[in-house]
């Protein structure tokens, strides 16, 4: 069970949230190239280890929470709001490639 610390509501169970994917992807400007939109929509690093991602607190405050979580151990490292800069931990995930 993931416990996610919502900056507005406090620590809650994952069942209150809807996962919304990779938060490192930033929507390109409207006049950006097709390549930029292709990359934004479809291409993912899909890291084995630390991953910055969106969890939508649908069963709570309905805010979007940015979460740094380990895809191998399911450890939640840090959470913040959409504008938060959340650096990845320095140590590598165990066994991560």
């Amino acid at each position, binding site marked *: *069970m*993931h416990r996610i610390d919502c900056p507005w509501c406090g620590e809650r*169970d*994952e*069942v209150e949230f809807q*996962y919304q*994917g*990779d938060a490192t992807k930033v929507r390109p400007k409207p006049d950006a190239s097709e390549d930029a939109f*292709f*990359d934004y*929509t*479809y*291409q*993912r*690093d*899909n890291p*084995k280890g630390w*991953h910055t*991602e969106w969890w939508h607190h649908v069963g709570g405050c309905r805010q979007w929470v940015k979460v740094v*979580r380990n*895809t*191998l*151990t*399911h450890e939640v490292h840090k959470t913040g709001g959409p504008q938060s800069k959340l650096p990845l931990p320095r140590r590598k995930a165990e066994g991560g*490639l």
Partner: protein
Amino acid sequence: MRYNAFQILKQGLSGHKGWKPMWRDPEPKAEYDVIIIGGGGHGLATAYYLAKEHGITNVAVIEKGWIGGGNVGRNTTIFRSNYMFPANTHFYEKGMKLWEGLEQDFNFNAMVSQRGVINLFHSDPQRDAFARRGNAMRLAGVDAEFLSPDQLKEMVPILDFKNARFPIQGGLMQRRGGTIRHDAVAWGFARGADSRGVDIIQNCEVKDIVIEGGAAVAVETSRGKIRGKKVAMAVAGHTSQIAAMAGIKLPIESHVLQAFVSEGIKPLIDTVVTFGAGHFYISQSDKGGLVFGGDLDGYNSYAQRGNLPMMEHVMAGGMAIMPAIGRVRLLRHWGGIMDMSFDGSPFICKTGVDKLYLNGGWCYGGFKATPASGWCYAHTIAKDEPHPLNKDFTIERFREGRMIDEKGVGPNPWIQ
């Protein structure tokens, strides 16, 4: 050694001392015609069909752990070909036909059981959607049958037909679908490939793909460098990692999918039933265990285990449609890592790197595809061009707007 009744008799009379290991444990050679990364179902099937259909036997299957230790042993053993889109229909039907002849073909008992697969529907629109899919299947030469509630009651009496939220209005059935002993698929393909000269190299991890002049020429492994005239990936679950070694970025996310087995009970259900509206599907193994599963956990994960909320959700689905299983105890559960592609369909294709081939993106439908995947991938590798059956399973389809999105949910892998 051919397996047959005479062998059983002969070995039985001589104390079973004459059975040979099913495959060798060779040291890697310096160079191969084809290196397949990944000794799962798809990699082994590819090696088997490369040798059998194309006469290419100087092949290595390189596996990090032991063969069949990944998703070919972490599924719910179901096979079917009940897809609607032409690319999928014809591809999975090829798989169905290969399954039907597989045991004779590779001389191994995989316990292929065509016990049927039934998709339940609960509303008029869902009935119409299923009828449409069934008709598309029949037009493509695939069997599909519409079942009335009365027919269903005879076949699966323990369903809750009068469920308040999801009353059962009928089902779409593919009688040729069913279940298979999944480990035997890996072992059968491994034995068949090995006997034709393929080297199966276990406990050998690929660390890097060596590219020279725009072409893949070798792999660096934990047991040294191995050169290959062609290098083929078949590592679904970890495709992003291996592809990154060749500088390739893909429309794939890795997600965990759980499955469950109950204690063994007397025969309760002799077909496969899927309750899509409640995210639950079930069959019963020959040992008596109820084998069932549901949806992805729904977040990126490489942990081969799931979490409790999805477990509860799946059980709730089971209780809703089959309340009789409420007193049955759960024996084990496990998680497998799925390559979730951004349209729910796989890749069997060439890559931007010459002599490097991709097989992945199987989402949660990889097991049923195993023979078709190996057969088409072997063709793609041997001829350096796709077979018509897999020509649509490219990486470029996303850039070209030719997604094969059977579910129609868009580029959100966690709900595909």
